[in-house]
């Protein structure tokens, strides 16, 4: 556990000192501010537009950061051979990969936190009243980021090419937002395709579960619903991380 924390800590430090990280956070904050313009065109609901665009921007930039970073995390280390001086120490590959993944998540969450603070400040300026759903929405976005990060890590180890890994990850993200449509399609087709679509439906997490902003107007979001959503993300994240570990365990350098 101590080694996981150590690896995570130094991964976090390394990530937040990377100029690319600052650029991405800067662009995220810029888009959040730019949403003020859209809010001005929003007619009677400028706050709602500011809220939606801001939350989407926050998630999108976190997604871009985690996607690119997770894909390059191990690939770059293998190519640059920085990994040699770690795995030739008494550290298991599980410890290494989990530590690197958690450190990367911590860095992305740091960026999300900064963007969220900016967003809340802007909302407050527009007269918005802080509600508990806001941090819950951000938390669920953060969980979606964790799942996609694990997926990106798996693809990077499986395909060994950054371009194809990022492409697969983006495709997976898109598929995850059309989960209900895939299920509906499966109910309308013949046996063979039905089985294939069922496999895709269960394999790809329904990323809509993490979009609390889509249920903003729903009056009673219960604690149990939140608990199920978190559990759902945890299971899928752990599943893809386990797949990544399985591929990584047999790698030679």
């Amino acid at each position, binding site marked *: 556990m*101590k*080694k996981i924390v*150590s*690896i995570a800590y*130094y991964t976090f*430090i*390394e990530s937040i*000192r*990377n100029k690319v990280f600052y650029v991405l956070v800067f662009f995220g904050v810029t888009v959040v501010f730019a949403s003020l313009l859209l809010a001005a065109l929003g007619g009677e609901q400028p706050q709602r537009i500011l809220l939606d665009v801001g939350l989407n921007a926050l998630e999108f930039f976190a997604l871009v950061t985690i996607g690119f970073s997770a894909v390059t995390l191990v690939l770059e280390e293998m190519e*640059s*051979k*920085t990994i*040699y*001086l*770690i*795995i*030739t*120490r*008494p*550290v298991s590959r599980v410890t290494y990969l989990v530590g690197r993944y958690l450190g990367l998540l911590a860095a992305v969450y740091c960026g999300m936190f900064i963007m969220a603070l900016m967003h809340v400040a802007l909302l407050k300026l527009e007269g918005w009243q802080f509600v508990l759903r806001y941090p819950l929405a951000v938390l669920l976005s953060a969980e979606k980021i964790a799942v996609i990060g694990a997926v990106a890590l798996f693809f990077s180890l499986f395909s060994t090419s950054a371009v194809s890994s990022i492409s697969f990850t983006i495709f997976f993200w898109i598929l995850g937002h059309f989960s209900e449509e895939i299920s509906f399609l499966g109910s309308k087709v013949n046996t063979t395709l039905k089985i294939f679509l069922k496999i895709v439906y269960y394999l790809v997490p329904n990323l809509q579960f993490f979009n609390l902003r889509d249920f903003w107007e729903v009056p009673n979001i219960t604690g149990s619903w939140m608990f199920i959503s978190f559990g759902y993300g945890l299971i899928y994240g752990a599943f893809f991380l386990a797949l990544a570990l399985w591929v990584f365990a047999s790698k*030679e*350098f």
Partner: protein
Amino acid sequence: MLSIELNNLTKAYVKKHLLTTRRTTGVESITLSIGKGEIFGLLGLNGAGKTTTIKLILGLLKPTTGYVKVSGFDVPSYEVLKKIGYLPEVPYFYKYLTADEILKFYGGLSEIGNINKKVSEILDFVGLESVRKKRLAEFSKGMLQRVAIAQSLLHSPDILIYDEPVSGLDPLAIQEMRGLITSLKALGKTLFLSSHLISEVEKVCDRVGILAKGKLVRTLEQKQWASNPGGLEKIFVDEVSGSSELGRIKIESNKTNLNNQIPD
């Protein structure tokens, strides 16, 4: 107990592309034993299998046949990795961390106690105390090599595996490396190093192995090359001639005018 034991070690790389399979042998049937406190040098041309051998000892590669033992433990294992200090040919580090941070990071992974004190001592030892808070991206090649040496010694390993330790170093740095190797021997450390530089190897090694096309063609002790008229270089050239895939550069030694020999 032997420090390092390689038994009938073979590594074959299999590459599958569409319907074809290509098999390349990295190293073949290497059997070698290195005693405690010995400095062993592995010589070979480019592509002979030196780095492959080192990676097999470290567990970075899995042998196709045969096995490796370090201090009686099978490779790979935690016990082996605790006893080994590794210096890669070209050290790569996390460039946004400082020298101090990277050594604390490695020290934590190697389960070192009193790590702050140990890191300070090792940075002082390699002459980097004054730049410990500088990011590694700003380090020169020589400074990075010193960081690499520091990380290899940080956890006081019994066995050191150095891959081309003087590669790319200036003469002063080579002299310092030679001094370090001699000091490590005096401390009873076992050192396994690979190198191209025969002149350096023959100064520090107790025994040398010559690799050609993945096979260990000869091992010899210091007194054998010391008593040979052409020294270690002649023995090496005789053993590896013809093993390179490349042709020799066609320079005839009895012709003094080089211009007549180089094509237009």
